[in-house]
């Protein structure tokens, strides 16, 4: 329990360095919380807890997910195209590198904390680390809405960064888990205890599946499509596509409400598992994002991102995947108990980020000097 406290200090300390900070956070929180998106999430949680009747057909949920991913990609490609025409790659390469670096760092910090502070098994540590090393597109969408509402829109190429952040974390955590499990197993076998060999092929397969998974294919694919069609189409022809996918538009915002309602329903069901996962994982699910978020805000600022950009980068670095990571972990590290990772990612970190994290990262970004 020493490290968590240290982590907590690292994460929150800067925020209280000056006096009015806390009041500003509270105000940000209010401005964030009392909007339809987090309120729909809350409604979902309430409905589940009181055994209410709200049910979102899984096809609707899935269809909205597809739309959101396509939209993030398309608008990202469109903005990137403008950025590229104005500045070439000069503004983009540093943030991209920083994002990749954070994508490699966060699964390792997560693993180390889980294994050596929390004393969890190799498989469980690696499994959870895979979730925290990747990112949640919905957290991105909510963070993006937030900064737009505060009149500090993020740099145009943030969707590109989301795409970059999706894979490396999962890959690193899975490889780490597989390698350490194998070592442990070898050690056990030397002690005379039998142990099943890891199927190498499955690891490769799972990594391939992560890299060509729905999220990446849709975001990266539509990014290219948005980029190309911005270059080649005249504005009038482009307009209806832009309106459809537009992340400030009614479809994106409205569908995000319905999506968060469903996420609330699912998270509400998971809340009962909080007892099962124990206090360490609850603390981890709140403090780890604060640390990662701080790193994101700070390094984003170093790489030249604006205030909105730093906030959003912090949010996505702090967020944990609950779409791409679970099946990959389930296939490669079957001994890992999915209840731990899903509960942490979905019932702790996700709601924390939506409700409190994002405004906190916003203040962190201001504090490190982003504008």
């Amino acid at each position: 329990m020493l490290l968590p406290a240290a982590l907590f200090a690292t994460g929150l300390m800067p925020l209280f360095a000056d006096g009015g900070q806390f009041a500003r956070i509270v105000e940000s929180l209010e401005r964030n919380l009392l909007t339809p998106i987090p309120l729909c999430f809350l409604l979902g949680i309430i409905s589940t807890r009181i055994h209410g009747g709200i049910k979102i057909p899984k096809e609707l949920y899935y269809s909205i997910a597809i739309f959101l991913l396509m939209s993030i990609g398309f608008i990202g490609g469109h903005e990137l195209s403008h950025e590229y025409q104005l500045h070439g790659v000069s503004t983009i390469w540093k943030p991209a590198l920083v994002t990749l670096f954070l994508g490699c760092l966060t699964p390792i910090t997560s693993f180390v904390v889980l294994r050596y502070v929390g004393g969890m098994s190799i498989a469980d540590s690696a499994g959870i680390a895979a979730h925290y090393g990747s990112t949640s597109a919905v957290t991105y969408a909510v963070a993006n809405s937030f900064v737009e509402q505060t009149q500090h829109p993020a740099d145009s190429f943030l969707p590109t960064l989301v795409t970059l952040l999706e894979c490396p974390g999962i890959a690193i955590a899975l490889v780490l888990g597989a390698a350490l499990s194998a070592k442990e197993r070898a050690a056990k076998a030397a002690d005379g205890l039998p142990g099943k060999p890891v199927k190498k092929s499955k690891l490769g397969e799972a990594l391939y599946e992560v890299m060509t998974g729905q999220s990446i294919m849709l975001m990266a694919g539509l990014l290219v499509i948005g980029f190309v069609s911005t270059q080649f189409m005249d504005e009038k022809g482009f307009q209806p596509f832009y309106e459809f996918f537009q992340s400030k538009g009614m479809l994106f915002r409205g569908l995000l409400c319905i999506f968060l309602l469903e996420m609330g329903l699912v998270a509400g069901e998971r809340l009962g598992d909080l007892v099962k996962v124990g206090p360490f994982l609850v603390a981890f699910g709140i403090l780890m994002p604060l640390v990662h978020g701080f790193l994101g805000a700070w390094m984003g600022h170093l790489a030249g991102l604006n205030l909105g950009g730093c906030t959003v980068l912090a949010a996505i670095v702090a967020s944990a995947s609950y779409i791409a990571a679970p099946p990959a972990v389930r296939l490669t590290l079957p001994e890992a108990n999915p209840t731990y990772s899903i509960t942490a990612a979905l019932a702790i970190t996700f709601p924390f980020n939506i409700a409190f994290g994002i405004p906190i990262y916003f203040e962190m970004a201001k504090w490190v000097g982003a504008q």
Partner: protein
Amino acid sequence: MHLYPLKLVTVVGETVIMEEIAEEVIKLGATGFTLSDVVGHGSRSTRNVLISGEAKTRKLEVVVPSEVAVTILTYVSHNYFEHYACIAWLSDVAVVRGDQYVGKQ
């Protein structure tokens, strides 16, 4: 009616493993299979946590000769029973033109 006595193998388990099992079943000698989406509850159902547009649990049905049935069940129980939520059973069926389903091997 030529009815041929064969076995119906039914496997119900987490979606994440069912496609793999379906593919393997063909390699083990089945000539086909039938998959359906179900909702399940069992002793390990907390393991069953994928969130996605897909059903979390799937049912596989395969009509095969008795020996193939045993091979399939052995494969499934060896590879998946320990860490994944699943159940498998066998029953007797009489199949129309059943010789078609004896297949390669």
